[in-house]
């Protein structure tokens, strides 16, 4: 089971001029096994939504709730949210100098499962996950995200998604900055994850391109900190043709 329910979520960030409201009442339900695409212009608050769900300390929740299978997510620490089954593939993955990818993955897996993975199968799993994302096996000895190309960072995020196997994955612009080959590789990884039993995906994107490879069940247009319109994948086709102008104007 994996049901993520976001209800009337309000979020601010601290600025020099005091708190600034970024999310202005987001309501969204991702049922068991569903993939939802969130599409919106730059600055509309998509990353803020992703980070708020994951618990980034920069954001202050001023109202609303988020639950995963009925459990209150917002009262949990960042690592507790991950252990509850949430995963965030970041728009800008962070470099951690001196910490090797293999050490990082093993530490994360151990933390999530409450016990160290069995060495032999784990090494095999890691190598398979890296290979499927066209990452060289020597990747394991490199420092996390340090000196990775933009594409390698994104593929590394999806390798983690497959290995760490959360209930619900939030993918923040995993497609941006990828060439078409890398986009296909990444999409295949996400689709392998979706093929598993009952996995939820919140796919945040600026472009319709990735939706050719990952077919969403629902599409939401996100403007000025909230959902402006929801529909099926035909909504993505409309956006492809007409862009965000209509929504942004309506909002202005």
């Amino acid at each position, binding site marked *: 089971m994996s049901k993520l329910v976001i209800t009337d979520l309000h979020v601010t960030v601290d600025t020099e001029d005091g708190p600034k409201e970024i999310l202005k009442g987001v309501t969204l339900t991702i049922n068991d096994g569903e993939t939802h695409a969130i599409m919106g212009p730059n600055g509309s608050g998509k990353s803020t939504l992703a980070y708020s769900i994951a618990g980034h300390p920069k954001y202050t929740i001023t109202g609303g709730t988020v639950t995963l299978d009925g459990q209150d997510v917002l009262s949990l*620490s*960042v690592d507790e949210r991950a252990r509850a089954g949430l*995963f965030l593939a*970041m728009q800008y*993955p*962070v470099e951690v100098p001196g*910490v090797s990818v293999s050490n990082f993955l093993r530490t*994360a897996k151990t933390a999530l499962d409450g016990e160290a993975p069995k060495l032999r199968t784990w090494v095999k799993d890691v190598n398979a996950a890296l290979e499927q994302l066209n990452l060289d096996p020597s990747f394991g000895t490199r*420092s996390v995200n340090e000196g990775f190309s933009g594409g390698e960072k994104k593929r590394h995020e999806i390798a983690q998604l497959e290995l760490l196997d959360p209930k619900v994955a939030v993918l923040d612009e995993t497609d941006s900055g990828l060439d078409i080959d890398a986009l296909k590789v990444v999409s295949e990884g996400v689709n392998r994850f979706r093929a598993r039993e009952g996995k939820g995906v919140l796919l945040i994107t600026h472009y319709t391109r990735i939706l050719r490879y990952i077919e969403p069940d629902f599409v939401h247009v996100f403007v000025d900190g909230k959902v402006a319109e929801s529909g099926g994948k035909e909504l993505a086709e409309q956006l492809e043709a007409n862009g965000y102008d209509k929504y942004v104007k309506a909002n202005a």
Partner: protein
Amino acid sequence: MTVTTDSVRSALEQDTIESHLNPVGSFDVADHPVPTGREEIWRFSPLKRLKGLHADAPFDRSTTSCTWNTPEGVRIEGVSGDEARSLRGISGLVPNTRFAARVLAEVPASLVVDVPADLEVAEPIVISLDGKDASTTEAGHVAMRFGAHSKAVVVINHEGSSAMAAVVEIVVGDGADVTVVSIQDWADDAVHLAHHQARVGRDATYKHAAVSFGGDVVRMDANVTYDGPGGSAELLGLYFADAGQHIEHRLFADHNAPHTKSNVVYKGALQGEGAHTVWIGNVLIRKVAEGIETYEENRNLVLTDGCRADSVPNLEIETGEIEGAGHASATARFDDEQLFYLQSRGVSEKEAQRLVVHGFFNDLIRQVGVPSIEDRLLTTVEAELAKNVLQDLAAFGRES
């Protein structure tokens, strides 16, 4: 870059005089007044806690045991009398501090390490100093000579309680490949004032690693000069200061010969009220030193409130004909983004902090390049972390 006056410039052209980065040296103790704390080279040091070692503390009979292994072909022994006297200043050291001048003038014996030319010593030479009593003050002199094209690793290991002034002189022969690691893993009450001076021969490779974890006050000056072109020096440092500790590393790479290299990397972590670290990185590129390369870097990771890290790189360039010169210095707290990234993968806050600190030191420990002490350094970093940060977390109830 530091602006220099014309008089200093012309003096430097003679290639013999000390830079204004360091006071002019002298073997005569009378030329070195007792420091007041206002001197540039003493202004960071807590003189009151030095037990007089910087001034006129008696050099008593040693209460620190000294043991070593002797790989085949190597001579290591204590010497005195004329032989000891003949070893004073072999590294080109002309003392610029009272304590170094006193050590050379007053200490009756020296520990000599002789590695003959062409000998490649497979196992590290480990010299273990184990202090028994920090209430008496003592001093020591070590002279290491590495013959041409020899290869060796020496580890000096300091443990226990002691109040010690020490001068270590290192002569790296032409084409030799030498690593000297000095580990300061003292007990909490130790005071250690040390000057390590190396002369690096033509085309020789010298690596010095200073590792400071324990002691009330540790101050180490690590200096390098070159005895011909083509020499290369790597000055590495790793330190971890706890509450109340003062750890000070000063280094001076004096590029007095062309086509020489220096690469300085010091990294430190600080935790606990009153933890204080000082890093002074002096690099001088003299007029004759054309075609040299130098880079120096100091990074500090501040783990808790109440710590202070001073970091001062000084790069003084007297010739435009250089291959490359640069420096970097940074002092930072834990990076929230790094911790968030790790925690978002299920890793607890303390485990994330542990990973980041290990990562911070990892490359450096590998760079030290002595496999037999790598594990020990990692374990000690671990133990240091366990001391404070994790306790603090527990105290604040943030442990998960």
